[in-house]
């Protein structure tokens, strides 16, 4: 639930508004300089202003409600050390890495890299100092900090990183990942896991093209695939509800079975052994392809779809009874049961939603690529999990939400385009991804010491 937004003083409001307008003007000028279409600039200007004003009120509100506390510690230095130990270690580590890199690599020590270093340092400092002030949503704050830091570093160091084209492509891929992670987030909120998502994505991808090639009208085929996705999700939910605690392995098993079964189905009567050929209808390609357009505005509709999903989910989970019950179940099942919340119903529904969105992702990916491929979802096996975790939703249930996952998705996406931008291969990207997930999670998702849990 939103903390009641405290009334700010008039001057604070005015300052916020002015800064927001200045930022918006900068954005508009930047947009015109790049020659983007007018509708696009207006839309983004409104979005910038609204987001900034809301963020300003929210952040300041956190400080107003916070009473400053000063307790007598042993000594000043020791207290600072105890309080900011991880941050200090992080600072020293980053400085050391920078030093080593400057010594090792020719031309590394230039102005852009120094600024990047400063941004990194300030992220670490801010997350440990300001982040402390946030009672809840700390992970969202840190996520946004990391996101903006990464983005500004990318924009400074890489040609064309902040161009409309690149942002559009980042948003496109983020939309795929974001839609695929809807189910994972909801299921994780209940304390489950859904590893069948990548297999359902692949199966939907191949199955949809197969149906279309059989002559089923495309709209009917999409509806069929989505329905089958829901049905598979229901099966997943029922099975894993009976086998509590084994959700990981149950969904993995059904995933294997689904992907095998769909491939057998599609290869019956053909000589291609799992390869399906067919033509993707134009509207489906337009929905997801890079050069698609939404009501005349040149950006792929899938981004808009994702935006709608984000709105519905975040608002729905915050303000509807249904959403609150979901959190209640995630935090403590027994007590949720005591107030007559049906555990089975929610569990199965969440898995059904997960199946639906996985099938949707598969169908959209068909529009994007134009050809069926069973392995198209493989990367989402760990990426959806990583997005949920980086965003700050606890895998044990009850904490987090889809808004957090959106931040996680964006962080992963910006990071991946940044790594591509500085010319790293796929394997290096994966390596760095792996190394970065740990500290990102360690920034806010540390469990308390066992001593305090007894």
């Amino acid at each position: 639930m939103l903390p009641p937004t405290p009334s700010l003083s008039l001057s604070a409001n005015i300052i916020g508004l002015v800064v927001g307008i200045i930022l918006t003007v900068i954005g508009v000028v930047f947009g015109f300089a790049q020659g983007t279409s007018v509708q696009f600039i207006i839309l983004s200007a409104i979005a910038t202003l609204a987001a900034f004003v809301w963020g300003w009120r929210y952040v300041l509100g956190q400080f107003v409600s916070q009473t400053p506390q000063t307790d007598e510690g042993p000594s000043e230095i020791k207290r600072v050390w105890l309080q900011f130990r991880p941050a200090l270690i992080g600072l020293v580590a980053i400085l050391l890495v920078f030093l080593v890199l400057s010594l090792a690599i020719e031309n590394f020590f230039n102005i852009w890299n120094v600024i990047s270093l400063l941004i990194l340092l300030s992220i670490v400092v801010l997350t440990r100092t300001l982040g402390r002030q946030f009672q809840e949503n700390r992970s969202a704050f840190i996520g946004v900090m990391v996101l903006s830091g990464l983005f500004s570093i990318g924009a400074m160091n890489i040609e064309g990183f902040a161009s409309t084209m690149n942002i559009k492509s980042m948003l496109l891929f983020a939309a795929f990942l974001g839609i695929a992670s809807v189910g994972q987030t909801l299921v994780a909120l209940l304390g489950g896991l859904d590893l069948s998502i990548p297999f359902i994505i692949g199966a939907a991808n191949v199955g949809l093209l197969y149906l279309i090639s059989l002559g089923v009208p495309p709209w009917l085929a999409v509806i069929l695939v989505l329905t089958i996705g829901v049905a598979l999700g229901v099966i997943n939910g029922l099975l894993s509800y009976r086998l509590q605690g084994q959700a990981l392995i149950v969904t993995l098993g059904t995933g294997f079975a689904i992907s095998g079964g769909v491939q057998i189905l599609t290869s019956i009567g053909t000589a291609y052994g799992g390869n399906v050929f067919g033509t993707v209808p134009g509207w489906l390609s337009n929905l997801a392809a890079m050069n698609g357009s939404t009501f005349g505005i040149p950006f792929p509709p899938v981004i808009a779809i994702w935006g709608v999903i984000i709105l519905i989910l975040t608002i729905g989970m915050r303000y509807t009874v249904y959403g609150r019950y979901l959190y209640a179940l995630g935090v403590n099942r027994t007590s949720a049961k005591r107030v007559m919340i049906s555990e089975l119903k929610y569990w199965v529904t969440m898995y059904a939603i997960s199946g639906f969105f996985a099938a949707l992702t598969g169908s959209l990916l068909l529009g994007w690529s134009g050809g069926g491929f069973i392995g198209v979802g493989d990367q989402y096996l760990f990426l959806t999990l990583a997005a949920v975790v980086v965003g700050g939703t606890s895998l044990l249930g009850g904490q987090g939400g889809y808004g957090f996952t959106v931040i996680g998705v964006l962080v992963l996406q910006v990071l991946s385009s940044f790594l591509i931008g500085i010319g790293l291969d796929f394997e290096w990207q994966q390596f760095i991804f792996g190394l970065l997930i740990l500290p990102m999670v360690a920034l806010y998702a540390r469990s308390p010491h066992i001593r305090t849990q007894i």
Partner: protein
Amino acid sequence: MVPDAAAAPSQGGRSYPFLLVPISLFFLLLGLAVLRSPSLITSAGIGSAVIVATPLILATYALMAVVIAGRGTVDLSVGPLIGFVNVTLIQLHGAGVLESPLAVFAYAIAVGAAYQLLFALIVIYVRVQPIIVSLSGYLALSGLNLVILPRPGGVAPQWMADWGLGTSIFSPVLLILVLASLGWMLFTQTAFFTHLRLMGSDERAAYTSGVPIFVVRIGAHLISGCFAGLAAIAFTALISSGDPSQGTTYTLIAVTALVLGGASLAGGRGGVFGSFLGAINLYLITFVLATFNFGAVQSFVTNLAYGTILVVSLLLTLIIPFIQRHLRNFSPLLYFVALSVVALSVILHATFDYQSQGQDQPETGADQPALSSQMLTPIDREQLYVAPLEVAAPNQQESAMRAAAAPVILFILLMVVIAVFLRVAFSQSDRRNLAPVVAVVILALVVLGAYMMRHPGGPNAPPVNVEAE
């Protein structure tokens, strides 16, 4: 729990009822595999099975050791870790650094243990969920593997490549497997293992009762690292080269095998016996499916079967409480013995009575059995449904063989009766520890069965040649 839980050997831990499903599945698959391709039960057939299955079994052990430690420590990074040891081993060998077997073993185990030590330290001191650490390790290591060795290639040391031929049962790989299993069984006798299980079941209880949980966790991870190192050696011997991505696939299969073997992903329950059965079951599934020739959709069928069997066997664990209610004195070991008798008879039947199949496909005979599973010709549908159930019409020679086999079966049945009798007698008395007796009986059965298969005419007769007509 079973009342006389102490009656079975301790390798199964307290997971007795959970072994029911893997044991049943094992014998079901074994019977099917033997009927489909009798050449599995030859020296070379078992030899190649050992070679192929050992990396998976050891990878499952590696998972098991940490899964028992609790907190949902499913080490997703075990596959990439195997791949990492594999590719670095190949590259170092290529550079002429690692030559002697001792150095290779030391290197593999040290890398595995070092990685797992790091893992444990992160879990303990950074205090993030273990699944996140393993996810991170999965991504990092599988990226690093591709950097070290961009595409499959390289050569393993010659002595190691020889291991991977799998022409006889008694290969060094089997020795590794046996030693690893024995090592774990010895380990289960220690107080450390009790601590480990306590910590896995309830970490807070362990902490409050004075178990040094950090030390125990580090210990579990070190053991897991050693298993992972051994798995990497077996894997390298199997493919005798380097492969950056193949090792990664072991993660999902090993998790599947672990669960199939009755371990609990929540911690506190798991054993070497169950894990072994789980991994072997997966191997047998692949083997049985390979004998049916599905052509282009072979791998899809394998996937489908993996998934279905996994889900079904998980569902079967749900009925265990009902079984327990009605069957107070259930002993998985006795169950194992009883089923192994059935399986032995199936093996005898398949070996001696199935001349017809052997004639049709002479290449599945004892001469080139290592290739048996690949060389089978597609069978027509009628045979597929009927063949396993068909009663072979015995000719002169087969009747003679049957006559020779009859005493063996009779003897085995007699042994089972004795074993059951002993079992009942002992459980009636206060002596609860029957494990050595039952183990001796099983060993005797197996040795006798093997011997009789080889010399059905008695000790002085020449070994039977199935191909002779």
